[in-house]
């Protein structure tokens, strides 16, 4: 099947569930990520019939996940609920190290660093996922990395 054809949702879901869950855990912590995971794929399912081709589906999925996570973070801020304790995760995660390292970065930089170095996504895809230009994504990632270096030195 060529990339222009929108795949059955089953295939999209199978291929994007891992990256989506990783991004949501990176942004929200483990427990909130599960709820956001379901919301992300329900949103994707609602929008699925309007897709015109099967290109950039990874970036599309991560963008929806990002939007869902931002909504959750906004609600959290509005109700000033405490941020989940990211150190309380009880099992090692593939992206544990990166997640721990980036935990204190501003949200956009954190997402950009995570997608660039955790997923090896192009800046174009990261920009699409974050709803910004690829240049803005590159800047967010590099300023995130600068911030991490500074912290390491201090």
């Amino acid at each position, binding site marked *: *099947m060529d990339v222009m054809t*929108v*795949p*059955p*949702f*089953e*295939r999209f*879901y199978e291929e994007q*569930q*891992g*990256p989506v*869950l*990783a991004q949501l*855990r990176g942004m929200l912590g483990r427990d909130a990520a*599960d709820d956001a*995971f*379901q919301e992300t*794929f*329900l949103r994707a*399912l*609602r929008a*699925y*019939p309007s*897709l015109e081709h099967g290109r950039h589906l990874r970036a599309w999925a991560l963008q929806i996940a990002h939007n869902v996570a931002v909504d959750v973070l906004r609600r959290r801020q509005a109700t000033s609920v405490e941020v989940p304790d990211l150190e309380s995760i009880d099992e090692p*995660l*593939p*992206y544990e190290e990166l997640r721990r390292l980036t935990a204190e970065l501003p949200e956009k930089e954190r997402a950009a660093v995570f997608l660039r170095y955790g997923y090896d996504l192009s800046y174009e895809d990261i920009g699409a996922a974050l709803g910004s230009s690829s240049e803005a994504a590159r800047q967010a990632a590099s300023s995130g990395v600068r911030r991490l270096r500074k912290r390491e030195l201090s």
Partner: protein
Amino acid sequence: MTVSPELDRSFRAAAAAEGLLDVAYALHDTPVGRLLVAVTDRGVCEIHYDADPAAEADRLARAFGSRVLRSPRPTDAVRRQLDEYFAGTRRDFDLEVDLRPAREFGRAVLEQLALVPYGEVTTYGTLAQRAGRPRAARAVGAVMNRNPVPIVLPCHRVVGATGSLVGYAGGLDRKRTLLELERALNPSS
């Protein structure tokens, strides 16, 4: 990153509960092997022997829309009735069938096929006659071969004019098994 079975199940159930699927399907083990059972909001749209789920998902997406997802709950009624049929406690299926992709003649034949009673057999020629094209026995054979919902639409009850089993998309052994289950075969045939 691996999604836990609970989270996966929960999403698949929610997708169906919210009415967002064009097609929900499940794999179901029966005495004639593992069947892929698929339903739309209009009824059962596919039962497939020896299915390659990825290939079937592609086919279902082309026929009914791209929102095809493995989600067992909407298929519960079909799978329960299949279990009852194989247990010998059900003779007739009480299910809507979604035949949207079938062409006019195919649909007419399948509608006649649905009327062939449990435990009886008919012939390709008889079915052609009942569908309004008495000379189209061979075309009826082709429709049977592409029957989207075998067992529920009983193409196993259609045999040659001489009583020979002729053919079956799921293989002749399965045709024989189904007819024996319904006691529609003489021990000699």
